[in-house]
């Protein structure tokens, strides 16, 4: 489990990037839900934490691909592949991320440090 931040440091409507490999984005929706996905858009290299959060969707800041944060599904192109999701846990007012075991869908030209 990776500690992300104190819950108080991530207000609703905001997002945070964790410098894991690959980086993870944690979102706090206006409705108070917490979600984590790989921070890199599956289409081209852009940080989803920099994107526009609306409901349970994030819009990529570069080309406006939209992803459903609950499932990682692509809701709007140009992205073709879903973004990998991670589990979020809040314990003692701290946000933790449980990284997924599945392989990530990183865009062309972006590699993880271990690959």
């Amino acid at each position: 489990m990776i500690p992300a931040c104190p819950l108080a440091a991530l207000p609703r409507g905001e997002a945070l990037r964790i410098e894991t490999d690959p980086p993870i984005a944690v979102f706090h929706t206006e409705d108070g839900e917490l979600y984590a996905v790989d921070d890199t858009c599956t289409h081209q290299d852009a940080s989803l934490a920099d994107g526009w959060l609306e409901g349970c969707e994030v819009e990529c800041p570069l080309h406006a691909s939209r992803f459903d944060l609950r499932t990682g599904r692509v809701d709007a192109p140009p992205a073709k592949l879903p973004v990998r999701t991670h589990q979020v846990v809040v314990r003692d007012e701290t946000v933790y991320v449980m990284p997924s075991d599945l392989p990530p869908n990183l865009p062309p030209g972006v590699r993880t440090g271990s690959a």
Partner: protein
Amino acid sequence: MKSVAIVGASLAGLSAARALRDQGFGGRLMIVGAEPHRPYDRPPLSKEFLAGQMTTADLALEGDGEDLDAEWRLGVAATGLEQGRPLRITLADGSAVEADGVVIATGSVARTLGGDLAGVHTLRTIEDAAALRAGLDAARRLVVIGAGFIGAEVACVARTLGLDVTIVEAAPAPFARALGPEMGTALAGLHEDHGVRLICGAAVRTLTGEGRVDGVLLEDGRRLDADVVLVGIGARPAVDWLDGSGVQVGDGVLCDTGGATSVPGVVAVGDCAAWFDPALGAHLRVEHWTGAARRPATAARTLLSGGAAVPDALAPPYLWSDQYGMRVQFAGHTLPGDEVSVEEGDLASRRFLAVYRREGRTVAVLGIDQPRSFTRWRRRVNEPAGAR
């Protein structure tokens, strides 16, 4: 409407096909493309593809298993459009396709300086990009003619490859058409930081060399040595094939705010189309990726409703560019006389967000390495004055 022909098989054409199917069009769909390729993404051609970080396969726009139930006619250009019922599109191989509705999405063609010297390139297609890359690999000195975004991105890749790079621009300031002179100069500073020589206010008299280019001669008599020249002086809409069709053309196919042309049953999208922009009070040809990706949904509704659908509000034009690891983003449209102010960061650090205002209204936003604030500011473009 029982059949639709889309002329143009790049981003705008593919997006039109997707939009028609999404909106319930179940009829016959034909897609004509002058290039032999399935739809591919062009922005990486001057960035990751040129740098060797993306392959041809990475450029594919269609998803795995995506099936639009369309008949593809690739590698054959359209030569004419004849009005009537059905509409008839003649093709370069002598054949024709007939349809009740037509989407014009033929894009644009890079402007050239004429001549046929080897080593002189333009960049529009995947073949252009491959040829340019091979040229750069064998060269020491690159001269880019035209300080626009494609030229800047190629300059950036060439510097990374270790070439000596000079950009020549006829206007007094670089990137001025898109960004205005002040911010254009600020962006040019980024290139100078990375060792690019920039010469502004200098027109090109001629390219020199016998068979193969060896230099660029400027009007003021200066001569720049060059092994490779990239001509990045813009593009003209690919609309010659519409001569005599009755489709009204200015700088591009003239369209209303929903993409309808002067001919019933014919809409136009992408680089070849100049939609009426109410915020500007004029037709504006937008050569950006986002317009080609998004506007076809509006045009498809216009086509399927016979023009009865009320068009969506136009999203402001948006472009991005990657230069030396910095992300350049611009949304809106600037005119001479707009007020520009830096709202975040500062010019000296080359990382900043600038806002363009006209009569108190935000008309454009430029972000250099400011993706998060850009995302927020972009949504304020063209809001009424005093809305926030």
